[in-house]
Every structure is written in C-alpha cells, then in structure tokens.
C-alpha cells in the first residue's frame, strides 16, 4: 500500500439543534470549529450522548432521515463544502457494522458491487485488495463464515477490512471498540496501530475512554456535553505503540488528570467517561 494523499477536513461553526416536544429547541452541538490537515489519529473524547456520533455522520455526509444536520455551519473537504455522501470518508460503527446476510468475504467486497467503486476498480484489482485486507486483519481462514458465527472483535476486524479496502483518505471511527471486552479491545487497538502504519490516513476516532484516547491519539480533542463544545485540544508526541511504562509515566498521568478536570468543569459533572485499567 502507498500512503493516502493528504486531505484537509474543516468543521466551521457547526451547530446542531433538535426540536423538542413543546416547540423548544435542544442545542446538542454549539459552535464547533476544528481543522484537520494531515494524516494522524485524532481522538474525539467526550461523555456518551454529547453529540460525537452526530458530528461523525455529518463528516461522513450521511444523515438519518428527518434531521437537518448540521443546523448551521459548514464542513469542508479540501476546501469544498460537503453536504451529501462522499467517497473521501468511510465510517466504522460500534454496532450493526456487518451485513448478516453476507459472508466475511462478501462483506469486505460489498462496496465493490456498487456503481461508484465498480467504475474505479477492475474486478481483479478489488479482489486482490479484499484478500490483502482479510490477511491484514487475520481473517483469511474465516472468509466464508457469516458475521453471526464470529465474535465481536472479529466482526470489527471485518468492518475495518472493508473500510480500509477502499483506501479512504478519511476514516471515521465511532466508538468502534466500545462494545468489546477489555482484552479484545486491546488487541483491536494494536491492530489499528498496525493498519494505520500500513495506510496512514486521517483518522477521527470517537471514544469515551480516556485510556484509549491516550493510547492511540496523535491529537486528543475533548468535548463537553449538553451542548458539545471543544473543551480541550492537545497533541501527544509519544510514538506508538505506547508502552505500559509510558501509560504510567508522569506525562500520561498528567494528561489524564487534565482531561478529567476539563470534562468535569465543562459538563458540570453530567455524563460519564470511562477510565479503563
């Protein structure tokens, strides 16, 4: 694999409101401004329900039916406003990632059955990519199984393989490992580090796990809740994989304290973040 061509992703004055019963408006995102210009793993950290997922679907250009999203503000990719589904960004979700009616292989190959990708890649090209990605996530021997026959971690491997087979410039990950138990989550975090090394693209990774943010992030953006605001935004220069010694270092502990205090101040104690051991 060669590297993804650089991409610029800009969120400008993003506001999201939902109509409440009784005509009131609930502002869940209040004037968020963010800029991403280079490959890297960017962690969006905030308590559950703070509007992170809404932000992600906006960036992916896909919105649930019946919601104007965003209410105001613009998202620019390479300077161009993006309002609809686009093929610069691919998403990985926490759940419902894979099609139950398709085998592992068919799940990874599914995008190439769509007109958009058929145009771009020949059959032999995409078949090679699919095999390559299955190997990269260690599922070559399970390619004829259905998702229901796989564990949660294996299912997320399939989702990662499908997303990266498209060689995206932007990878949007919405709490991808949030539903996995601790040991599997660690395995998946290591896998992501390896996959990122092979395909360094712009990753936006939503999590409510402080430890995960410190383990993976080149940059950590802390969001408050109700409404979501950028409460903090800093970089971590420590190279990955980050040893457990580093995780216990003064630097890491200080960063953790910094995040927790920002969250506490911003949200007035509402919401919850997790610190895993």
């Amino acid at each position, binding site marked *: 694999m060669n590297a993804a061509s650089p991409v610029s992703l800009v969120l400008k004055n993003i506001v999201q409101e939902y109509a409440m019963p009784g005509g009131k408006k609930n502002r869940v995102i209040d004037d968020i401004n963010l800029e991403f210009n280079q490959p890297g793993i960017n962690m969006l950290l905030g308590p559950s329900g703070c509007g992170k997922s809404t932000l992600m679907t906006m960036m992916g250009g*896909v919105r649930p039916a019946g919601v104007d999203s965003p209410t105001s503000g613009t998202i620019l990719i390479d300077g161009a406003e993006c309002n609809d589904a686009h093929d610069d*960004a691919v998403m990985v*979700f926490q*759940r419902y*990632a894979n099609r139950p009616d398709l085998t592992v292989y068919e799940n990874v190959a599914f*995008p190439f059955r769509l007109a958009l990708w058929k145009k771009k890649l020949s059959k032999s090209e995409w078949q090679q990519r699919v095999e390559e990605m299955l190997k990269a996530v260690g599922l070559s021997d399970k390619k004829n199984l259905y998702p229901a026959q796989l564990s949660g971690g294996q299912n997320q491997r399939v989702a990662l393989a499908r997303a990266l087979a*498209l060689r995206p410039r932007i990878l949007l990950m919405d709490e991808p490992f949030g539903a996995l138990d601790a040991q599997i989550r660690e395995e998946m975090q290591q896998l992501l580090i390896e996959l990122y090394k092979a395909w360094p693209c712009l990753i936006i990774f939503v999590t409510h796990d402080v430890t995960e943010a410190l383990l993976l992030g080149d940059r950590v953006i802390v969001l408050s809740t109700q409404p979501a605001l950028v409460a903090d935004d800093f970089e971590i220069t420590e190279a990955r994989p980050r040893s457990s010694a580093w995780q216990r270092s003064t630097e890491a502990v200080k960063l953790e304290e910094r995040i927790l205090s920002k969250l506490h101040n911003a949200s007035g104690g509402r919401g919850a973040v997790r610190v895993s051991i």
Partner: protein
Amino acid sequence: MSLWNPYAALTSGQRRGLGLAAVVLVIAIWSAVSGFGLVGPVKLPTPWSVLEAFAYLAWNDGKSLLLTATLWSAGRVAAAGVLVIAIGVPVGILMGSAPKLNAFLSPLVDPFRSAPVVALLPILVMWLGIGETMKIAFLFIGAVVYLIPMVRDAIQAVPQSYWISTRDLGATHWECVIKAIVPMAMPRIADAIIVGISMMWTYITVAEYVNAREGLGQLIQNARRFSAMDQVFAGIIVIIALALVTYQLMLGLKKKLYPWETSL
C-alpha cells in the same frame, strides 16, 4: 421437568410423539362417537368409511378422481401464487422503501385486510365470469391483500443503521434498497409468501364453489350434494395435507436459501 416452562427444550422424539398422540386421540374420539352411533353417519362418517371413500376417490374404474382434482386445485394455487409473488412482492418492496408511495397506496391495500374477501366472489363473477380467470383472481386477491403489507413491514423492519452504513460506502439510494435493504428483508418476505400461499389453500374451496368442473373444492361440493359425508371428509383431509406439505416444502426452501437467518 415442570410443564410450565416456555423455554423448555423438547427432543424431536417428544415433539413428534406428543403431536401423534393428539391426532390419535382425535381419531379415537371420532371412532367412538361415530362407531357407537351417537351421531348418525349422515352427519359424521366413521374414520374407516372416510378411508374407504379416500380409496374410492384415489382409484376407481381405471381413473383417480382425487389426483385429477388435486392437480387442478394445485394448478390454480400455483398460478395465483406466481401472480401474488410477481405483483405483491414488488409492490410491497416499493411501498416499504418509499414512504410517499406507501402513503398513496396503503388506503387501497390495508383496508382489504379486514374486508370479507369471500363476499367479493359475486362481484368477481359479475366482472370476470365463471371461468378460470375469476377463480385465480379470487385466490390472488385473497392472498395479496395480506402479502403486500407483510412485505412492506419486512422492508421497514430493517434497521436504519444499515441504510446509513450503505450510503456511507457510496451507494445510491436505489442501490441501498436493492443491494442492502431487500436482501436483508428476504427471510421475512419469504415468510410473507409462505403465509400467502398457505392462505390460498384455505380459499380454494370457495374459489371452486362456483361452476367448477374440476378441483378439490368441486369434489367436496359434489359429495355434499349427494350427502356423501365420507367423501367430504376425505376431500377436506386431502386439502389440509396438501397445505401442510406445501408449507413444509416452502419452509425448507427458505432455510436453504437464507442459511444466515437461522444462525442469528
């Protein structure tokens, strides 16, 4: 093991044994009631006279009335079945996939679920005459008014998250419907088809009530006219058996076509 546990697992032997016991019990009561003359043979024939009638219908004088009738009825169900699938499934898919189409068409479809379909028969006779067209149209209407809403519901039961993730991969709206939503709804659509076809077997006697020269409905109708209750019973039992066999075959086919559904 307590009787009252909805989740208790039965062995297939237990299940079959208990099912068989129920059938044997009914036949025993039936034999007793009819055999001891509690109810006259005109109202309730004995099981063995039904068996005799069955044998007579199955083979007499070098021909099988039963086979001919069965083929005719099965042919009508098959013809109407093909129509129901060819029209009902696409219409249901379109209604399920496009809320505007659903809003437009559902007043024309949904009320008929509670309409007395049998009462439509005289109207169909007026419009379509007393030939095959009328019979097949009747079976078709009887089943399609149930099938369309069930197919629509099957489409709408697919979680929206699949729509979002498929859109994200670059699918057009139509591709989302055709390549994601419909394939995932297929097992439930198959269930709808099974219900629809099974329903036709219950309507077949009504469809063949009017001017049928052949068919199981006509066979029963004729026998009733001559007060041959044993033949009426034999005919009804054959229809039930055919409906059961069709049901099992379709269920087996569904499991074969969608192996992923049972493994969920």
